[in-house]
């Protein structure tokens, strides 16, 4: 509270010391020296010590500010990327936060969401086991997680399919005479259907695979594995517009789906749009150099753009990893003439 008042003058001259010469500047009669003294009314030592103690604590805590500020920035950037459907960027940002704050529920929840849309189901499973039973205060985030976890059920084999897989050692070796009746008994098991569609695709039975995928998308229009295989099948069937349609459908869900960006680049390549294909494949590869499908696509687009040195570099990069080598096999077959990619 401030109280403005003119000090009563007990005597003529300066109200404080009685000096006869009064300085100009205010209603209170004060000499120049007293006016200056009252303007600089002293701040007591205990206030200065109190302020100093606060300053010491403040400076000590400031040492942690860059770290916490940087983490908060990564969290915020992740959320912005997530909101913009840029899930690869979002996942990277949330992983930085989790690396420093492994128990942060908010970052874990967002990471799960981003990982799901990046089809990184192993990360979803890893995080979900740690987050179970913990309270999520943000209702919207909680609802998004619930929704995602419901969808995620379609991305793992259920017990019946697991039992069948165990009987035949793996899902890929279940004979059709077992699998087809199983699908008939479980018409809503989209995972099993997608698995069968993938087997049909590998057998180059594109029409049957396409039909199976259509039945999945009737049930779950956003089921990403079905959309991804559809984009490839349509390319193989020379239905380019349809291939682009499914690529764009997948990209609308996740703008940074590098697999589908590369798939789109391959469709462009098949249309002899080699320059556009190179541009798109490069964008995808720069986005995620660890995506082996992007790496293999780069080899393919370099090949058709007659950039043989760059192509061979990509092939060399894949040679050190067995999974990358399997992705690179198709471009190698195309290069050697064993496979025909386009007319």
């Amino acid at each position, binding site marked *: 509270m*401030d*109280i403005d008042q003119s*000090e009563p003058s007990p005597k003529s001259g300066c109200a404080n010391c009685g000096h006869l010469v009064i300085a100009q500047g205010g209603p209170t009669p*004060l000499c120049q020296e007293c006016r200056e003294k009252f*303007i600089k*009314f002293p701040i007591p030592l205990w206030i200065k010590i109190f302020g100093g103690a606060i300053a010491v604590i403040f400076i000590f805590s400031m040492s942690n500010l860059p770290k916490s*500020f940087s983490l908060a920035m990564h969290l915020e950037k992740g959320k912005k990327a997530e909101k913009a459907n840029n899930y690869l960027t979002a996942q990277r940002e949330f992983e930085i936060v989790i690396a420093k704050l492994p128990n942060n529920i908010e970052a874990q929840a967002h990471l799960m969401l981003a990982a799901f849309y990046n089809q990184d189901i192993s990360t979803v499973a890893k995080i979900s086991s740690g987050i179970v039973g913990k309270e999520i205060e943000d209702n919207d985030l909680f609802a998004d997680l619930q929704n995602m976890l419901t969808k995620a059920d379609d991305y793992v084999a259920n017990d019946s399919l697991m039992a069948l897989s165990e009987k035949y050692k793996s899902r890929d070796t279940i004979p059709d005479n077992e699998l087809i009746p199983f699908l008939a008994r479980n018409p809503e098991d989209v995972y099993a259907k997608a698995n069968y569609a993938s087997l049909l695709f590998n057998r180059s039975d594109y029409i049957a695979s396409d039909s199976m995928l259509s039945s999945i998308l009737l049930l779950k229009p956003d089921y990403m594995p079905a959309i991804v295989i559809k984009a490839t099948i349509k390319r193989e069937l020379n239905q380019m517009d349809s291939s682009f349609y499914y690529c764009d459908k997948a990209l609308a869900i996740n703008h940074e789906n590098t697999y589908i960006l590369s798939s789109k680049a391959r469709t462009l390549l098949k249309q002899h749009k080699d320059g556009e294909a190179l541009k798109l494949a490069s964008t995808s590869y720069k986005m995620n150099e660890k995506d082996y499908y992007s790496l293999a696509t780069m080899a393919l687009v370099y090949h058709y753009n007659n950039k043989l040195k760059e192509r061979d570099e990509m092939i060399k990069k894949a040679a050190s990893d067995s999974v990358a080598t399997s992705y690179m096999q198709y471009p190698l077959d195309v290069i050697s003439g064993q496979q025909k990619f386009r007319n």
Partner: protein
Amino acid sequence: MFIPGFLITLVTFPGVIVHELAHQLFCRWFKVPVFKVVYFQMENPAGYVVHEATTNKLKGIMISIGPFIVNTLLGAIIALPASLPVFRFDTGTPLDYVLIYLGVSIAMHAFPSTGDANVIWEQVKEKENPFWVKLVGYPIVGLIYLGSIGSFFWLDLIYGVAVAIGLPNLLIALFA
């Protein structure tokens, strides 16, 4: 929940000290003599500054609203390093909680008191004042009284917490 005002004032005494210090500093910056400062006492008012009446209305208003500026800025700055660990990451150390306590205490005493409002009122209502003084002064008095009424509904505490959380979030929103 009703908590007696003196108890709140006692707990948040750093804010009262900074509030009075802000009045004093504004007097010093505007070269207005100060005759007495009570930084904190267990009486009503909990603190006050006696200074020379100023004929310059702007100076008078600024001295009265000085704590709003100083307490808000200081509260935000003091809470800054602790706000993210405490409110965002749940990783606050005891020192962080001390800073949050200080930041919130200081910021929640940012509102000028009704005594400050009365000083402004007295200065503004004079007939010879130009129109702009009334235009600025009356809303300030109104806002101070609203803030005073709001303190019954913990507006001062809400403001203190908002200031402590607000600055880092504002910076992150700007730079992320």
